[in-house]
């Protein structure tokens, strides 16, 4: 109950900052433009998922850390109140993660609704996309929180790690995977490569998008391991399970840290 009170206040505060509207507006404009100029086909969904894979981790991590710094006064005020730290943590986390998720979902969903795309044959793909965006938002906001708490006294370090972390997960990591593939390509490296992509949440989300939109290409690959992984429900289940583990990890780390911290 108290967590909800905190969440409710933080949500109002975010709205007052207007920043969240800008974030929703980005999705709204991109989605609207994609549908308007590219039609309501799978192409629009693919482009939206590309934007989502790029923007959500970046914004989640950076703003997750930044928000903690901005809420420092608020946190200190509440810590002296008869409140469980756990309650306070979830109130703070929800206060950011819920509006960010809502901004993404509404920004993406509204143009689909007024263009009539949502109730078309692609509804399953759209729901998957929205669900994935939701999990990604929760996940990367969690990582941002974790970083923010780890470097609570040093904002520059915290934000720096968030930015570098994003760059690493979004680009450099895949560079290493590509390099490994080209160096060790002649060995049976499919399983380790699959495992490697599971270790990066952005890759994990990307693979889930592939499973929905590029299954034709994935099934064209010669190799039993990939085919068994991608060709069955097993792939989707593994990907989603790994994603949930990824969601739990930073949040677990962050709550643990928050409960032990000195203010």
């Amino acid at each position: 109950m108290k967590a909800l009170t905190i969440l409710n206040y933080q949500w109002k505060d975010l709205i007052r900052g207007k920043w969240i509207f800008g974030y929703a507006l980005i999705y709204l404009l991109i989605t609207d433009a994609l549908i308007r100029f590219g039609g309501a086909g799978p192409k629009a969904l693919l482009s939206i998922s590309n934007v989502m894979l790029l923007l959500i981790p970046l914004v989640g991590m950076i703003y997750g850390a930044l928000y903690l710094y901005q809420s420092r006064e608020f946190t200190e005020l509440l810590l002296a109140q008869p409140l469980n730290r756990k309650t306070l943590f979830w109130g703070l986390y929800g206060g950011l993660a819920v509006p960010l998720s809502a901004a993404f979902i509404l920004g993406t969903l509204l143009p689909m609704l007024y263009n009539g795309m949502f109730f078309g044959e692609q509804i399953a793909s759209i729901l998957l996309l929205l669900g994935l965006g939701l999990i990604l938002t929760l996940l990367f906001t969690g990582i941002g929180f974790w970083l923010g708490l780890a470097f609570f006294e040093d904002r520059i370090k915290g934000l720096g790690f968030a930015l570098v972390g994003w760059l690493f997960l979004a680009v450099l990591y895949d560079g290493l995977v590509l390099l490994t593939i080209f160096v060790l390509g002649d060995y049976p490296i499919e399983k380790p490569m699959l495992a490697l992509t599971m270790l990066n949440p952005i890759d994990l989300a990307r693979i889930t998008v592939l499973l929905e939109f590029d299954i034709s290409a994935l099934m064209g690959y010669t190799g039993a391991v990939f085919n068994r992984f991608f060709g069955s429900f097993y792939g989707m289940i593994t990907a989603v399970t790994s994603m949930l583990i990824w969601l739990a990890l930073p949040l677990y780390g962050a709550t643990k840290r928050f409960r032990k911290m000195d203010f």
Partner: protein
Amino acid sequence: MIELKGLKKNFGRLTVLDDLDLEIPSGQATGIVGPNGSGKTTTIKSILGLVKPTDGEIRIDGELVNNRWEYREKIGYMPQVARYPENMTVEELFRFIKNIRGDQPSNEEELIKHFGLESELKKRMRTLSGGNRQKVGAVLSMMFNPDILIFDEPTAGLDPRSSVQFKKKVRELKDQGKTIMLTTHIMSEIEELADHLIFIVEGKIKYHGPMDELLNEHKEQRLEGAVAKMMEEEAA
């Protein structure tokens, strides 16, 4: 009664509180003094649970409160540097804290009047002067009528008139039988308000006892002189 037993706090390699044993009697006012960085604020924050002690026990009215939170119902706290959510108005802040407290009965109206904050209610926290922020902090600490009040350098940012108002309020609270803890650099304030004195240096208690005993012991009329003597002894 607040009891600290073997309280220890390290920040990294730095020992801030070193095996602190302390009893703060109920229904009286206790002043904490000590040089800068001696561990006054850390002691207060440990009692509030803002700082997690490395070791030791904290008991309030006999009950162990380490890692608990419900006991803070009984405490009103006014921090040294009051920082509040900048976008909130004063009014909203009070309402919000009341919400968090589950709409406990509060006497904030009377307090607002006492501190002359009526004209500030609609203003956002970020536009408030330092003194008015301190007053908001004072209202927040007192509005739920807690049994224990902890003030960390309460009058530092207040003008003389407000300072007098504040002290008047503290005396009222004392008369009501509240337990009061305060830190300050202004010795006259302690003389005015406190019955007991705690003197901390480098995380260790150097003196703990009734104020008049200290004055007698050091054959001083004024606290300032007594404390200065203690500090000299410490340096020697």
